[in-house]
């Protein structure tokens, strides 16, 4: 008889039957079972295969520390999750679980050949070989290693589930609802404080769940807490990380335990700011290190106690105990009292507490002091053990079907470590305990080092008469790190625990060393013959247990990932078949194809329509800033390269903005509406950056100026109407403004109404044609656009998008900041010397323009390019050379910044940044492309209506 359920024991009711499958086989468990307890109850003890050697493994623990029993759960429809701990899976009707990292089956795993060859795979073996032949690493060795590595299979489908998130604030956050945590909650709640009590398990109680004597108290306490309005109880909630200023990340599992998760959020991210944090995370029992300590059926004594007391499951029919600590005895007594037969109690200590001995005698248990287990019989299940005196004498075999280990206790100081709290070594516990805190936090109960488990030894490896370099005594069960691996690491010069950890991978498994770190420290300390403190401490990092990406992303999924900003006119564009492009946070109509048109055809049509009639364009996304105050002109004069003080109200000016390092960062046309009021425009992507930059100078450099900045980007919808017919189209719609060329010249602004809506009407042009930019309050943008659209029908009005806008402005040689400039371009590089106020003593960036390499000759300058073959459209980003016949690496003298097929000119045009470009007019340059080299002539970047007669029309 092996593991089995004991009638009447535990907290579960035999009424709630639950059917589930493991590796395809059907089983029955009880409501409230973990997958681990349910499988045990069915006599299943083989649950996994180890990472490296593929050794058969059963349960080591009963909680978050479990390193062995890693399970994949597939709920279908993309709801597949690998690497779940069997101890953390709540069974539900229809649960479909399967084991991992084995082929063809859990019982027969060909990968276990690694175990036989284990001697050739010591720690760091991969650094020592797989180097010849050189090419074989990627082609042969690495794929083989990668295939063997990994735990569960990766998901193959997108996750259909959604996740929730919230911020929360409380006075006291208590992590862990064991006795200590519950006491802390009761105490804190009395003071009307806002209290959060979190526990990772489905049922609150922690250690108390394994102690029937405490159940009445537990029920009473939870009832009391549940009634208090100032207390929030969150079970199935794992506090995974402790961040600055008492900010704790926690994940609540909402549907994972339900037979039908439906479409509710699967998990919820809690971002909690707490006044005080109380850590009551308990302690984790340590395994003992000896040959065979990983055979299925060898487990922590405390885990066996939990399986019995909480789940009513005996881990074996005939159980032995290997202990160096009193607590192991107590757990075994519990099993014995429940009728489990006990093979022997083996304690390495020569003397133990009289009370324990008396109790053992009363129960009639065999006791072997001063002895140690030196081997375990059985491969997929414990069949018996071999033991000997500490000096190696008196070797003997004992039959049993389970072996409990009790190696002492390690406080769960994970979150404490995240908070950068100090840790102090305690010789008594053989563990690090919380010391000086770094935040407003305290540890209570076992994780604070106060518990009543009795005393014991802390020891690295049990004594054995066998040759330690020939046996596999496991320290890190999941990563298959053995005592001899740690000895090897030390032998090879690893003297810090950080090096030992990285070299052996001890503590780097999915349990982050919850059961292995301290044993590894002890072993290293003995191997180096130095006290543990001098070897250091591997710092715990978030998360405390692995957490779902989806939960960490919270509600930032699909449409909620990041906002897509749309203009008020966007719906019209969508309804009229626009193809969109994303620019910064915005989406903009790129072109409006008619049936059968590709981008090239659509853009050519749109361009000609603007040149010959009228085009309508949504310019709403351009950044806008209203600059108001008596010192407005003075402020702009200091910010922009060109002079602003003399600009008359009603007039516009092109503004060029530099960073203090002298490079162009933004530009735009701005208008003076009144002596103390300007309407600035910026690039679409630059709006926020420019406003922040201006605020910075205003607030911190020139706080004396009486001027204020207000973002009006979204106040105004902007409709650009461009083309020779533009005036005719809007004339009937506009009132209060004389549209005549004399009264309303190019680069002027007027206020009036259009379609009855107040407007700031700009006469500006980014196309080289007669043009207007109609600014109306955003809510009326769509309405006015449609009115203009209607009015334009008689004039062949055509909607155009950003691509056409780019072509039209390129024909005029207007630059686009960010395309024709790249953060390394000065005004003179861009041929914008005219926009720099020579007489101004200072403006942002001016001084940098005088630096040696900025005034040096041979800088890249913006010029035009005409390909010898007018049909050849250069690729934007293509590189330019003077000598096409030079070998690679070639000397590149520049690159193409803008390039289009110009329907207006019936040929291709391009702009480029070229070294010494201004002095190369008429030169032929070369653009080497794969398979061919394109030749082009350098010209001024002005391809159309150089004298500007059209836009002044």
């Amino acid at each position: 008889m092996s593991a089995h359920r004991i009638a009447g024991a535990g907290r579960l009711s035999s009424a709630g039957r639950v059917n589930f499958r493991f590796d395809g086989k059907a089983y029955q468990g009880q409501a409230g079972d973990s997958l681990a307890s349910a499988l045990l109850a069915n006599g299943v003890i083989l649950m996994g295969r180890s990472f490296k050697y593929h050794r058969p493994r059963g349960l080591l623990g009963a909680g978050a520390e479990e390193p062995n029993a890693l399970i994949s759960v597939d709920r279908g429809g993309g709801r597949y999750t690998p690497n779940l701990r069997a101890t953390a899976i709540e069974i539900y009707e229809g649960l479909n679980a399967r084991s991992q990292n084995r082929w063809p089956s859990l019982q027969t795993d060909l990968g276990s050949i690694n175990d036989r060859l284990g001697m050739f795979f010591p720690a760091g073996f991969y650094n020592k070989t797989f180097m010849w032949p050189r090419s074989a690493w990627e082609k042969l060795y690495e794929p083989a290693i990668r295939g063997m590595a990994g735990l569960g299979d990766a998901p193959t489908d997108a996750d259909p589930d959604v996740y929730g998130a919230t911020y929360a604030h409380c006075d006291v956050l208590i992590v862990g609802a064991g006795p200590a945590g519950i006491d802390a909650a009761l105490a804190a709640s009395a003071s009307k404080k806002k209290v959060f009590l979190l526990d990772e398990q489905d049922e609150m109680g922690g250690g108390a769940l394994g102690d029937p004597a405490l159940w009445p108290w537990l029920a009473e306490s939870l009832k009391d807490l549940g009634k208090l309005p100032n207390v929030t109880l969150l079970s199935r909630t794992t506090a995974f990380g402790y961040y600055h200023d008492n900010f704790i990340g926690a994940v609540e599992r909402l549907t994972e335990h339900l037979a039908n998760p439906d479409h509710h959020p699967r998990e919820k991210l809690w971002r909690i700011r707490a006044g005080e944090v109380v850590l009551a995370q308990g302690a984790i029992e340590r395994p003992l290190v000896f040959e065979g300590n990983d055979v299925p059926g060898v487990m922590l004594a405390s885990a066996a106690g939990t399986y019995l007391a909480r789940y009513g499951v005996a881990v074996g029919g005939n159980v032995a105990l290997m202990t160096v600590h009193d607590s192991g005895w107590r757990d075994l007594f519990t099993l014995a009292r429940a009728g489990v037969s006990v093979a022997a109690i083996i304690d390495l200590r020569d003397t133990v507490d009289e009370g324990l001995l008396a109790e053992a005698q009363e129960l009639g248990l065999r006791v072997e002091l001063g002895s140690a287990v030196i081997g375990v019989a059985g491969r997929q299940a414990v069949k018996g053990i071999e033991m000997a005196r500490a000096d190696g004498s008196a070797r003997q075999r004992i039959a049993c079907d389970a072996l409990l280990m009790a190696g002492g206790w390690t406080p769960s100081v994970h979150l404490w470590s995240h908070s950068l709290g100090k840790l102090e070594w305690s010789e008594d516990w053989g563990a690090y305990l919380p010391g000086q805190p770094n935040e407003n936090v305290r540890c209570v109960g076992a994780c604070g080092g106060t518990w009543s488990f009795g005393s014991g030894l802390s020891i690295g490896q049990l004594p054995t008469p066998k040759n330690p370099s020939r046996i596999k005594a496991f320290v890190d069960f999941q990563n298959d790190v053995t005592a001899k691996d740690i000895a090897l690491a030390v032998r090879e010069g690893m003297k810090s625990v950080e090096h030992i950890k990285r070299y052996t991978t001890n503590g780097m498994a999915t349990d982050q060393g919850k059961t292995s770190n301290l044993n590894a420290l002890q072993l290293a300390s003995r191997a180096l013959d130095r006290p543990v403190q001098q070897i250091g401490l591997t710092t715990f990092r978030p998360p405390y247990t692995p957490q779902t990406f989806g939960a960490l992303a919270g509600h930032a999924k699909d449409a909620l990932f990041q906002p897509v900003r749309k203009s008020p006119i966007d719906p019209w564009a969508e309804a009229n078949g626009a193809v969109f492009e994303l620019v910064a946070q915005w989406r903009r109509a790129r072109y409006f194809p008619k049936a059968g048109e590709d981008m090239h055809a659509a853009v050519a049509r749109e361009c000609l329509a603007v040149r010959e009639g009228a085009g309508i364009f949504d310019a709403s996304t351009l950044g806008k800033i209203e600059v108001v105050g008596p010192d407005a002109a003075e402020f702009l004069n200091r910010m922009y390269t060109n002079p602003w003080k003399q600009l008359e109200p009603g007039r516009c000016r092109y503004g060029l903005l530099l960073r203090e390092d002298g490079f162009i960062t933004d530009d735009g046309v701005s208008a003076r509406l009144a002596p103390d009021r300007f309407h600035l425009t910026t690039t679409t992507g630059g709006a926020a950056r420019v406003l922040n930059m201006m605020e910075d100078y205003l607030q911190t450099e020139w706080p004396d100026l009486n001027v204020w900045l207000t973002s009006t980007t979204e106040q105004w919808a902007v409709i650009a109407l461009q083309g020779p017919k533009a005036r005719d189209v809007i004339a009937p719609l506009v009132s209060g403004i004389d549209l005549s060329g004399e009264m309303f010249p190019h680069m002027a602004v007027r206020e009036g109404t259009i379609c009855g809506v107040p407007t700031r009407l700009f006469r500006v042009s980014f196309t080289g044609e007669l043009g207007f930019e109609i600014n109306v309050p955003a809510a009326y943008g769509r309405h006015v656009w449609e009115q203009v659209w209607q009015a334009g029908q008689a004039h062949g009005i055509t909607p155009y998008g950003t691509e056409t806008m780019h072509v039209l402005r390129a024909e005029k040689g207007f630059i686009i900041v960010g395309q024709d400039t790249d953060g390394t371009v000065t005004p003179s590089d861009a041929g914008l010397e005219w926009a720099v106020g020579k007489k101004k003593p200072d403006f942002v960036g001016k001084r940098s323009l005088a630096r040696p390499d900025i005034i040096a000759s041979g800088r890249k300058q913006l010029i035009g390019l005409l390909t010898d073959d007018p049909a050849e459209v250069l690729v934007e980003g293509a590189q330019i050379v003077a000598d096409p016949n030079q070998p690679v690496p070639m000397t590149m003298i520049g690159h193409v910044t803008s390039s289009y097929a110009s329907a207006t000119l019936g040929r291709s045009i391009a702009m480029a940044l070229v070294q010494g470009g201004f002095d190369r007019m008429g030169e032929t340059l070369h653009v080497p492309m794969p398979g061919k080299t394109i030749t082009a002539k350098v010209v001024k970047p002005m391809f159309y209506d150089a004298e500007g007669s059209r836009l002044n029309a």
Partner: protein
Amino acid sequence: MTRFSAISLFAKALGGHQSWPELWPDAQPKPSYDAIIVGAGGHGLGAAYYLAKKYGITNVAVIEKGWLGGGNTGRNTTIVRSNYLYDESAHLYDHAVKLWDGLSQDLNFNVMYSKRGVMMLAHNVHDVQSFQRHIHANRLNGVDNEWLTPQEAKEYCPPLSIDPGARHPVLGAALQRRGGTARHDSVAWGYARAAAALGVDIIQNCAVTGIRRGADGAVEGVETTRGFIASKKIGVSAAGNSSVIMQMAGLEFPLESYPLQALVSEPVKPVFPCVVMSNTVHAYISQSDKGELVIGAGTDQYVSYSQRGALHIVEHTVAAICEIFPLFRRMRMLRNWGGIVDVTPDRSPILGKTPVPGLYVNCGWGTGGFKATPGAGDLLAYTMAKDEPHPINAPYNLDRFRRGRLIDEAAAAAVAH
């Protein structure tokens, strides 16, 4: 030095691995050295190795305040690539990539450099223009970097979502096939072992507390927590702590140190064949040989030496990864940590001489230092040996900030119009 090979591994195995020697002795400081390197990360250990191997200076000490390889070397996401835009950058990083190739054999230590390809995603028209510029410049510089359509990108990296309706749709990608990853710890250990074998002293737990300069202003050695150590040549390769060390020599540097976070998932069977980077959504991902998804996150906004990042940085990074790779939404974060990156105004390194005679510096690598490890080590060694920069690192001088000759790759990626 015991030569590593399948044969030696086999032989030692039969002996129960009892007779492996130390990879590197834990050296005690001597009174003086011909050259001292401050900082035992990959760069510093590499410099020591090349000083001894290529430039015949073997009386060298590498001084480390903690344990070797314990800084950014052991904390980064191990991406190796050289498809940079400007000639200066392309030459610098390609010098490193050439050394990566064959480094395992050179060091007789498998650093697990694997050319699985680095793919950078273009999410908007502006990205496409910028990547095209990179690709054409790389081609003429002899650096491999090719354009992939969304379909080709997905074929190269099956978990990639190329849904055109995505918030940041994939419009294409730039792929450098020679790019890839290496095993970070192994790089530090391999260099340490090989350098030690050539006579280099690796002195751990020895913090530099001062830099002593003579009447002529030249360096005479370093004050350390283990006493004064004399040397006429001092190379500082201290990453995030560089400005602190430079101040000891009376030098102010254009550096700021920021927290940079990274994280790994639980290990799964092979699912991710290459490295993918997306600058637009700030996500960098590959899969380690162990099976963990290795994910690079962004920097926090403020300067800090705490090696402790904020949760919201992780939230945003993981959200971005899940948008581009919806398969991974149910994967779980196993470990999350922070490093300190030292950043210059143009986000390019400073590598060469300093105004102080005998003092050399290698710093300012920001988030990109690991990929340059062999190159940075070699070039620092060259500069220290010859007391003049190699043509490749000559542009990476301190004076560029005065002259205005910045090497600003990020600026070249520019801003959206």
